[in-house]
């Protein structure tokens, strides 16, 4: 897979996935994916539901262990790392979950402070200053700090999740569907926050999304994954790898369909399935009567 769409300065990849395959029981989700993410790049992974984009993202940060292949982070293989090394390396990751994944039993303040406390990196005064600063940076008032996650709206929860992911100023921030379930205005707020983070310090980001507006706005590289079950033998799961501006004129029809939000052959598939079902029901009834 090429990475020629990025600046020349991004020579050494921060993340380098080599021939990564992931299998859940007998189901092969990802097959021999190669992906190099240079430092400072914002990569959007797009694709329809069930294509394996979240699995790929979790594999890149060591949450899912691939059944074959290597995932190098800054040159070190996450797959063969000892648990202690992996824990130390994870200080360099920030993860924004689809539904924020805030700890229900803690206040917003304690949620955001969790990574610093976990790694015992500061005293309580400094923790307070950093938490309040991060909450302000994602546009949340100080009163929110005392609330429980259950008392917040979806957009606020996402912003708290972002504040928590950024508290240790990680080198790699991973966003899982950051705008899913949000109204258009709040989606744009989240997009702007992703851009603001990139402006503030040289972070590398991976954004998993099927919101084309987010992909175009925040990323400087897009890859599109396709579900394996829909591929012919020998075809790559990565249908597109390039700049966001190249999406509309992509050579592959499936990429253009996805970008434009067209059902395409899925409609004929549905009609075919419906006809098959009707035919088998009629045959069954015929047999009963015969």
């Amino acid at each position: 897979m090429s990475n020629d769409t990025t600046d020349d300065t991004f020579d050494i990849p921060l993340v380098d996935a080599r021939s990564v395959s992931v299998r859940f029981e007998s189901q092969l989700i990802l097959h021999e994916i190669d992906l190099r993410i240079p430092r400072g790049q914002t990569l959007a992974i797009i694709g329809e539901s069930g294509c394996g984009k979240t699995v790929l993202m979790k594999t890149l940060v060591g949450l899912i262990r691939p059944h074959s292949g290597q995932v190098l982070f800054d040159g070190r293989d996450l797959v063969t790392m000892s648990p202690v090394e992996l824990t130390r390396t994870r200080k360099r990751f920030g993860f924004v979950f689809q539904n924020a994944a805030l700890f229900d039993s803690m206040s917003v303040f304690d949620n955001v402070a969790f990574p610093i406390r976990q790694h015992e990196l500061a005293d309580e005064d400094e923790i307070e200053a950093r938490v309040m600063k991060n909450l302000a940076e994602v546009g949340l008032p100080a009163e929110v700090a005392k609330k429980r996650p259950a008392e917040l709206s979806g957009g606020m929860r996402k912003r708290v999740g972002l504040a928590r992911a950024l508290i240790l100023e990680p080198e790699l921030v991973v966003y899982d569907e950051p705008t899913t379930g949000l109204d258009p205005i709040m989606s744009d707020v989240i997009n702007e926050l992703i851009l603001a983070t990139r402006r503030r310090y040289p972070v590398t980001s991976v954004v998993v999304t099927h919101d084309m507006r987010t992909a175009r706005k925040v990323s400087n590289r897009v890859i599109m994954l396709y579900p394996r079950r829909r591929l012919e033998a020998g075809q790559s799961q990565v249908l597109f790898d390039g700049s966001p501006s190249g999406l509309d004129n992509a050579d592959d029809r499936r990429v253009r369909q996805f970008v434009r939000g067209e059902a395409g052959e899925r409609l004929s598939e549905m009609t075919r399935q419906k006809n098959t079902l009707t035919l088998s029901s009629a045959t069954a009834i015929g047999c009963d009567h015969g």
Partner: protein
Amino acid sequence: MAGTTFRDDIDLDAPKPARLKNWISDWGGIVVDGVSTVGDITLFAHRMFVWMFTRLPQRGTMMINFYQVGVLSLPVVALTGTFIGMVLAVQSHHQFHLIGLESRLGVVINTSLVRELGPVLAATMLAGRVGSAMAAVLGTMRVTEQIDALTTMGADPIHYLVVPRFMACIFLIPALTIMADFMGIVGGYFYCVIILGIDHAAYLQNSSDYVSGYDLFTGIFKSIFFGGIIAIVSCYRGFNCEPGAEGVGNAATAAFVMSFVLILSIDLVLNIILDAVYYSIWPSQPSFL
């Protein structure tokens, strides 16, 4: 086999050798699943013990779990203990009355309580109250990706979530068992002496003569194992919860059922061992009859 019973896969129209093959393959699947679950739980427990002896969780995390397991369970365990004592008195009184040995009722009630019924019923009650809650909380955390969030922030979920719960259970379930025993003794005394009018002094004298320190030790010793079983099984079920509300419900139910069966099994094994130890130290003992 998840989601189906082994019978669902059997094609009844298939020729006999094929049906036999299906049966063997399905039973084989059940055995493999069972062995795999035992292996998983063993590895889970091993990781928990490694963390427990390497680095203890922060004090705040421990205290919350101690409070939830110990303090919040106290009323229900005390109530259960009281009723066990009183029910034992009701059940035994008629038989003992027929042979004129009502004054020996305290021996039966208190021995049964401290050796067997106090620990087992307190553990059963706690498997329902504490174990199911643990499985449901951890299952919800799994489903809502909170466990993944812990991992991404460099916190080991077993160290952060399981070790405090395990320690709370092994320290506080024996303490709660002592409370259940005490309240059972009070309940039994109340029913026998106050309601049935059995002589107070004879009741207490017989109890103290025949209920030994070893009986009390047996009950408390077993409850440490019961606490460990409840914590490990419930946390394991929560960690391996299937997605959705049904998944969380199933995890809570499975945690209780599995804990209950294991409590009774371990109880049998420990009773055999502890009895063997007892009779090797004190070979002959007088009967209370």
